[in-house]
């Protein structure tokens, strides 16, 4: 008895749903007739068309107000970030000296990164700028006039330039190079007219001995002021970002080294608690030998 009742109720539900899906009597599909569906779809077509148009219009107006050369606000970028190359997952440079496949990717990445730093390219594109001062190029008459970039020749990186047939940036010999670069920020004048440089060291002082001596290229890790300011990718097309190479010439093998590099520039704070990459970069280096 009870089951019969349930069955009927179940059957009714199915029938109701079927009637809702398609009611042949009123010719309704999902509770609406064809013309009703037509009207409602037309309404939403118009409605959403209008909204899309309005959205497009406001976005267009907004974009008109945006300066294509310099962003309106830069206050989030007061301290530029630092970054390393090769940029492995989790800033972790680990390789085995004797197994070339563990470091070939790093070498490839560095080659690729430094391609545009080739002396020939630099000579062809960029100007030789006077060292030691900002390369300011004010717009005089023509706004947003294309700016010239200063040369940064790859050869300046010495053994870390990766030049020559064995240009392996020291990875093959267990004396790896890591490139440190400062993030591009438009109209950023670091160092208050005094020279700036990159300083690297073991994160914990007690580990310094294990890490061994660090060689910086260009010497002292100096970044010349002529590479600043940056005028943005539209007008400063061939801008070459200055880099500093750090070579770990005698790092103890099979040990995790925590290395930190900072941008040493007057008036630049590098101790932001929250942003671990503001004016500094920390990475792990591990050279495995069998």
């Amino acid at each position: 008895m009870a089951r019969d009742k349930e069955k009927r109720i179940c059957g009714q539900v199915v029938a109701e749903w079927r009637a809702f899906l398609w009611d042949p009597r009123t010719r309704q599909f999902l509770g609406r007739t064809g013309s009703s569906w037509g009207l409602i779809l037309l309404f939403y077509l118009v409605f959403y068309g209008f909204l899309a148009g309005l959205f497009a219009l406001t976005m267009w107006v907004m974009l008109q107000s945006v300066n294509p050369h310099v962003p309106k606000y830069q206050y989030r970028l007061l301290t530029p970030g630092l970054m390393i190359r090769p940029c492995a997952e989790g800033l972790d440079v680990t390789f085995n000296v004797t197994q070339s496949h563990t470091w070939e990717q790093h070498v490839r990445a560095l080659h690729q990164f430094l391609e545009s730093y080739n002396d020939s390219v630099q000579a062809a594109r960029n100007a030789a700028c006077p060292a030691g001062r900002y390369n300011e190029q004010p717009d005089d008459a023509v706004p947003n006039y294309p700016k010239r970039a200063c040369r940064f020749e790859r050869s300046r990186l010495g053994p870390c330039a990766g030049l020559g047939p064995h240009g392996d940036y020291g990875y093959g010999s267990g004396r790896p190079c890591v490139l440190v670069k400062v993030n591009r920020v438009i109209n950023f004048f670091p160092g208050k007219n005094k020279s700036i440089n990159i300083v690297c060291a073991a994160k914990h002082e007690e580990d310094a001995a294990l890490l061994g001596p660090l060689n910086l290229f260009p010497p002292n890790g100096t970044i010349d002021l002529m590479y600043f300011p940056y005028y943005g990718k539209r007008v400063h097309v061939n801008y070459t970002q200055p880099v500093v190479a750090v070579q770990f010439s005698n790092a103890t093998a099979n040990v995790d080294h925590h290395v930190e590099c900072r941008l040493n520039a007057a008036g630049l704070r590098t101790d932001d608690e929250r942003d671990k990459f503001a004016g500094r970069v920390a990475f792990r280096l591990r050279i495995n030998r069998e």
Partner: protein
Amino acid sequence: MVKKRSDVYSVEIYGTKDLHKTEIEDEEEKHKEQKGNKKKKKAEDLKKELDLDDHRLSPSELEMKYGTSIDKGLSSARAAEILARDGPNALTPPKATPEIVKFLKQMIGGFSILLWIGAGFSWISFGIQLAQGVDSAFDNLYLGVVLALVVILTGIFAYYQEAKSTNIMASFSKMIPQQAVVLRDAEKKELPADQLVVGDIVEIKGGDRIPADIRLIFTQGCKVDNSSLTGESEPQSRSCDFTHENPLETRNIAFYSTTCVEGTATGIVINTGDRTIIGRIASLASGVGNEKTPIAIEIEHFVYLVAGVAISIGVLFFIISVSMHYKILDSIIFLIGIIVANVPEGLLATVTVSLSLTAKRMAKKNCLVKNLEAVETLGSTSIICSDKTGTLTQNRMTVAHLWFDNQIYSADTSEDQTTQPFDQSSPSWTALSKIVTLCNRAEFRPGQENLPIMKRVVAGDASETALLKFSEVILGDVMSIRAQNKKVAEIPFNSTNKFQLSIHETDDPQDKRFLLVMKGAPERILERCSTIMINGKEEPLDSEKAEAFQTAYMELGGMGERVLGFCHLYLPEKEFPETFQFDTDSMNFPSSNLCFVGLLSMIDPPRSTVPDAVSKCRSAGIKVIMVTGDHPITAKAIAKSVGIISATSETVEDIAKRLNIPVEQVNRREATAAVVNGMELKDMSSEQLDAILREHSEIVFARTSPQQKLIIVEGCQRQGAVVAVTGDGVNDSPALKKADIGIAMGIAGSDAAKNAADMVLLDDNFASIVTGVEEGRLIFDNLKKTIAYTLTKNIAELCPFLIYIIASIPMPIGTITILFIDLGTDIIPSVALAYEKAESDIMNRRPRNKRRDRLVNQQLAVYSYLQIGIMQSVGAFVTYFTVYAEQGFLPSTLLGVRVNWESNGINDFEDSYGQQWTHYQRMYLQWTGYTAFFVSITIQQVADLIIRKTRRNSIFRQGLFRNKVIWVGIFSQIGIALILTYGLGHVTALNFTPLRFQYWFVAVPFAILIWVYDEIRKLLIRRHPGSWWDKNMYY
């Protein structure tokens, strides 16, 4: 309570004794039918209990049976023993749901389960990420904790709200403990009534509530009001004699919770607590199931709808994100976001607050709501079954008409009369007023000189009270008049001679005659008269004058009034000198050939506010059915005078009388009104009852018992109606429970009725029900607005997730931020909508149809989700893109960046200008984006709040400033947003950042657009009622 009850009088015109037995059997049968085996057993128990034989036993047999002594009572030790065995003499309160169960119900009810799922997913992904060593794993842990907290806090809030409203009721049940005078250890003691045990000897006097079921062994003029048990309104006299086999019929048993109206009595307690007859009935009432309230059904429907949307969108996008090669873990996190965005976390709390605000407002208007949801039920009521006595009427006999000098005079029957306007110059009136004053045993209780006459408490029966108050109003100090006319002899009223007689000295010192005054049933009085007073002169009572008397008597009787005749006689001084000793037993004085003076008729008059309330009900499409134990003529007269039966409508009997044809030949459909006798109702099948309820719009059930109320309620519910029922007696409680909304009387109602009811009417006034209905309808409308307001922004919260998944842009709004909208900025505004005034006269439309008029209908959901919600999303996205563009990320750069954007290791992420960003710099920008999105939604919600004030009328017609609370809402909304943005902008965990001021205004044009669009929508709805637009856009 006891004191209050003593001024409750009822109409006593015709006895209803012959009804009781069958009624009680009826009830048993009905319960048997209804509740199957389990209940059958209960009913059997009741029957067994009724097989009392104590009424047959002699006092000495009783002493033996209960081991007590009529002279000494029980010993304290013995009493303590029995008390330990039987328990206290109190009704067990209905089993309450344990608090913890109520609490847990709040924790898993509604959306809570969805949020628990969200919290669960958060913890699972936290566990997985922790195992994988992902830095941001703890974000998910916190999110889970926050979600759990949200559930728990809203649960606690809802629980607290519910507990608060139950507490109001709890205060009702805690009444002053009743005291009883008991004979124990041969001493009279006053004990709390719950200490009584079987075998105790108790004393009762007029005004007391009977403390237990008692077999009377000594009585003196004792009368009890059994109305709360049997529904009969006439006080029943009680004696020590065994008069009937049925314990309910016999005179020598008084029942627990009934009231002793007058006289004194002593008796042996034979049943206590739940074993009393009342206890049995009360436990039966608790067996009638409570049905879900309409608003509970609506909210459930709404929860299903929203949960359905949440789950289907969640699952859909889970599938989409999996097929777009997102990691399963990421997809789960998206799912959490979608659920949180979809669920209006604060809404159920808001609904509770709105309902309790209305409940408070209703309490101020004398409707005390026990169950919050009942607030709305009252609004959807389509039939009100109302008691007559006390609810529609003032519950006191009042003199309505007088007849003397061959003329009928009307008296003022209003509640606060201080004078009587009819012509009082005739000397006949002077004579009549003297009889009325003197031939009356009722007295005011002392110490009430400052109260208005109509409010004073009187010792005496209902009609004597009416006469006493009537004469006090006209003549002033009745007691001193009586003192000046000293009573020398008296024959009280009894049912065999049907008159009352007293003999007085006169207040005229010159006149040494005695005055004999008499009142009683008019025909009996007339029999004893040979003359009649016309304009102060005695004239012989000829057939013409007797005819005039008959006409007047019929006319007054036809109005459903109780008519009394008055006559007097000055006894000749010679035969009855000053020293004459009157003997009422041998009747040594004349009691015939008297002088007829006049007639007075009394009725329990309708409350003055009732006719208006009834007509309001009528225009509101609510059918008012009168259910009364009174005689059909009285019931019909009152029904006509309050408009339950309108002036033009006729009953079948009326038509038959008018057309002079037999009742059977009348076309029943022509009769709009019907007066159904309880006796007819008893023999009716449910189909016949249904036919009556269907065919007649104006129905009066007369001479019904409270038990039959249940049948009537069920009949109404079979018609699909939402039924409100009023009741006061214990026997009403099954009907009160069965009804969609049971309304107990606050003053006259018994505890059992109040327990069973959903609502208590503090002033017992029908008109208060109507104001309650109005509030209930208003809250339904306003809840619609609240829900529409709340649902809208869910789309603006949901769209970011969907676009984030599909277009891989940086996350526009965070889960925590969404919670700050749902539980922060939006709460006060959505409550503020509960204060919105009605758009039009809500009492001019029909009650809502339970099945068709849903709280959340398709139009509401579609309009909120697909129109206003989408507009809000567009506005918020414009703000979002503006913030990013002005910081260096143009919209084109943002598409598809999600993976790199969120990568911890990429700290030289390039923007549209060639600048490079660290991960934290990007995250900070993302939070600024959250804040901007949040602020935009808030700003647009202000517009949403304003448009939701009305559904049809223009905002300008409704008045922007009439509802001040809305502005409190708007300011709170903006204030909270300001605090979150600028005050807490530095707390990273909350993901708010200080926002540049101009971004607050980006969405303003969209807010204005929302307002304008909605005004256009409303305009078109008003202009083209019934059109396609109206059907699709009106919610």
